[in-house]
Structure formats: C-alpha cells, structure tokens
C-alpha cells in the first residue's frame, strides 16, 4: 500500500511507549505516524471539535464513552488496550513496604505531611485513588491531608522532591523514579479497573485499522510492558 500519514492522539502518560510503537509501526508498514500527546480531556475535546485524528488512546474511559456517545468513534473499533495498577509511594529510595488494607495507618504516617494525588474528582488516577481509599475506609482520615496535582506526574514530582512524603500514582510512573519507592500496590478490587481504551475515529481512513491491529500485536505488547503497563488480553 501507498505510504500514508496517520495521526494518533494518545494520553501523555504513554509518551515513551508510543515512541517505540510509532517507530515499530513505521518500520513495519512504511506509513508515517504522528503522535499528539496531551491530556485525555484536551484530546477528546479536540476530536469532538473535528481534529484530524485517526486513532485515540485515552487514559480515561469516561472520555472515550463521551466520544462514543457523540458518535465520533468508528463503530466496533473500541478496545480496552492497557491496564495499570495503583501504588502507594513514599519519598526516598528503599522505604519499607507496607501492607495495604483497612488497617493501614496512613493518616498517622502522614502526620503534618501531605498525600500527593492527582485531582480526585477530575483526573482518573485521582478518581481511582480516592475510590480505593474509600473502599478501604481510609478516605475520611486522609482527605484533609490530600494535595491534588493536575496530573499523576505532578503528584509524583511532589513526592520525589520530598514536598509530600507519600503519594498515590500509577505503577508505571513509580517505576523509573529513583527518589520514590512504591511501598504497596492497591488491590485491584479496591478501585474500578484502570483501563486505557483505544479506538479509531469516525471517518478515519487508511491505516487506522492496521495501527489498532499493531497495538494488539506482540511488538506493541513488548513496548508497553517495558514501560510497566499490562496489556489487556482479549
């Protein structure tokens, strides 16, 4: 097939993985891929406003639902692509692991410090984190100590710089940061599944389908797993 240009809108937390996927797909197919990385909300709104996107990978199923309801997705192309886990992190390397459960003394550990999270009502990582804490019965106690960042990376930075002693972020974020330690993973049943859905946009032509296929393939899986994501098997 003739080399075509494909525009992919992807949540910014996928930056590195998408770089690998893009290179692999281009090498494999000869198509040219441009990946626009921004917050899921911004990307979704742009797609609603007629952005020339062919594929959308969201970090927030809610926005994908929104687009689906608005008829902006190519029917039948939506898949849940990736799964992530939520971890409790502490400042500094080599912090002692804890057992995450209803008896976790998180409020006491925080003391006067802050628990860094993403916006608990707006950003998925914050929403999931709040849900998990509520489920564990910890939310009431820690709520006044929560510092909400505009995204997970900013929450991570708060812990990494020591501004906040603890934080709740995705496992993928905690992995590569030397100044934080993931001291526990929230059990998957404490929060809604953390899913990254992908879909082709209505009216997308050419290699969009091929790209979605590639995302489900082994090379992409390797790239995602290298960054700490779990790939949803279908």
């Amino acid at each position, binding site marked *: 097939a003739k080399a075509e240009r494909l525009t992919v809108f992807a949540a910014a937390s996928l930056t590195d993985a998408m770089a690998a996927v893009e290179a692999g797909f281009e090498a494999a197919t000869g198509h040219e891929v441009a990946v626009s990385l921004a917050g899921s909300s911004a990307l979704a709104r742009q797609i609603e406003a007629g952005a020339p996107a062919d594929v959308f990978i969201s970090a927030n199923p809610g926005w994908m639902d929104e687009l689906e309801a608005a008829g902006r997705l190519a029917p039948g192309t939506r898949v849940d692509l990736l799964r992530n886990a939520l971890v409790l992190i502490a400042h500094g390397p080599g912090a002692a692991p804890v057992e995450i459960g209803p008896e976790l003394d998180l409020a006491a550990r925080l003391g006067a410090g802050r628990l860094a999270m993403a916006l608990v009502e707006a950003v998925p990582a914050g929403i999931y984190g709040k849900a998990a804490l509520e489920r564990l019965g910890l939310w009431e106690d820690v709520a006044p100590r*929560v510092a909400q960042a505009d995204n997970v990376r900013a929450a991570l930075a708060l812990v990494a710089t020591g501004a906040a002693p603890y934080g709740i972020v995705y496992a993928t974020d905690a992995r590569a940061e030397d100044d934080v330690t993931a001291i526990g993973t929230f059990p998957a049943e404490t929060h809604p599944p953390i899913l990254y859905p992908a879909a082709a946009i209505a009216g997308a032509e050419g290699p969009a389908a091929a790209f979605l296929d590639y995302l489900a393939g082994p090379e992409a899986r390797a790239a995602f797993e290298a960054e700490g994501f779990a790939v949803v098997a279908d």
Partner: protein
Amino acid sequence: MDWLGAEEWQAVALSLRVSLWATAASLPLGLFTAYALARWEFPGKQIVNGLVHLPLILPPVVTGYLLLLTFGPQGPAGRLLAEVGVVFGFRWTGAALAAAVMAFPLMVRAMRLSIEAVDPKLEAAGATLGASPPWVFATVTLPLVAPGVLAGAVLAFAKAMGEFGATITFVSNIPGETRTIPSAIYAFLQVPGGEGAALRLVAVSVAVAMGALLLSEWLARRVARRVGGA
C-alpha cells in the same frame, strides 16, 4: 447565590486573596526593579533583566517545578524560611508566591516603561530644591509614573487571577487552601460535562478582573487629567 456551590465560592474568595496579595506584595520589589533597570547601570544588569523575564519564557509547569525545588518544604529556601515561620509549601501563600512570580515580568515592564518616560530634568529640579534621591523618587518620579504603576498592578492582578500551571505544580490543589479559580476550572474541564460549572467560574473570574481593570482605567484617567492641566 446558588448557581455556584460553597466550594466554588471558596475558590473565588481564595483567588481574590491570592491575587491581591501577590500584587500588593510584589509591588515594592517590582517598582524597585523597574527603577533600577530603567535608570541605573550596574554589573549584571542584563542578568537581572533576564531573570525577571524568565517566568514569561519558561512553561509554567517548569516555573512551578523550580519553585517547588526551591521554596517547597524540602527546598533550601523553603527550609530556611520555615525556620522564621514563613511557609509557602501547600499554603495559599505559596499560591500567591507563584502568582507573583508569574506576574512579575508584566509588572516590571509596565513600570519600567513609565519610569523611562519621566523627564530626568524634573527629577533634577527636585534635587536642586533640596530633595534627596529617595524624596525625589517619592515626590516627583512616583506620582508621575502612577499610571504605569497602576497598569503594572492591574496586569499583575489579572495574570494572578488567571495563573494556573505554576500554582498547581508548586502548591497543588487543596480546597480552601490552594484551590484557586483556575485550578477549579481545570478540574471541571477534566471531566466530561464539566463545562457548565467551569463557565460559571470563568464568568466570576472575568467579572472580578474586569472590575479591577475598569477601576485602574478610571484612576489612571484621573491622574492624567491632573497632570495634563486644569
């Protein structure tokens, strides 16, 4: 009024407090810096000039991050200031600091342009009448640059009302403490269907800033009329 919830009104009150403090507290330093850049020659002048403009050039997130590293609870300046009881991290004071830093280039530039337009001959006349340099500044320069100071202050206030990136990165978003109007708006815009609430906050924010703007225009016009004659 019930078209804004209690939390939103809290954000409005907080934004007002943060912006007013950011403007008021940076005014003296802004004026001093503007004067120094307009009138003095000193080594490193262009470095100071560059530093003043830095927040304009850097993406706000970077500025916020630098503030976090310096003035955060673990930052060198943050720790030092904590000793004397001044805490910026996760406090509304930090939001004010972020807003002030982001607004500083605008404030300084407006004041500097006004100061450069003052005829040094008038200042010299003040000196021959016995006024020492600080007095000349207070009695001649300052009244003549009043429109520029006002312009600088209102620009800074408007910018402070709209500042988001550096603020949330530095002091995050704690309801009642650091959740300013822009932070609240951002949160609303992150969820599908939040546009309505965001719009209401935008309206409040615009109304407040426009009020300040109109007030400043009216004041500047009064000053201009006085200087112009009659």
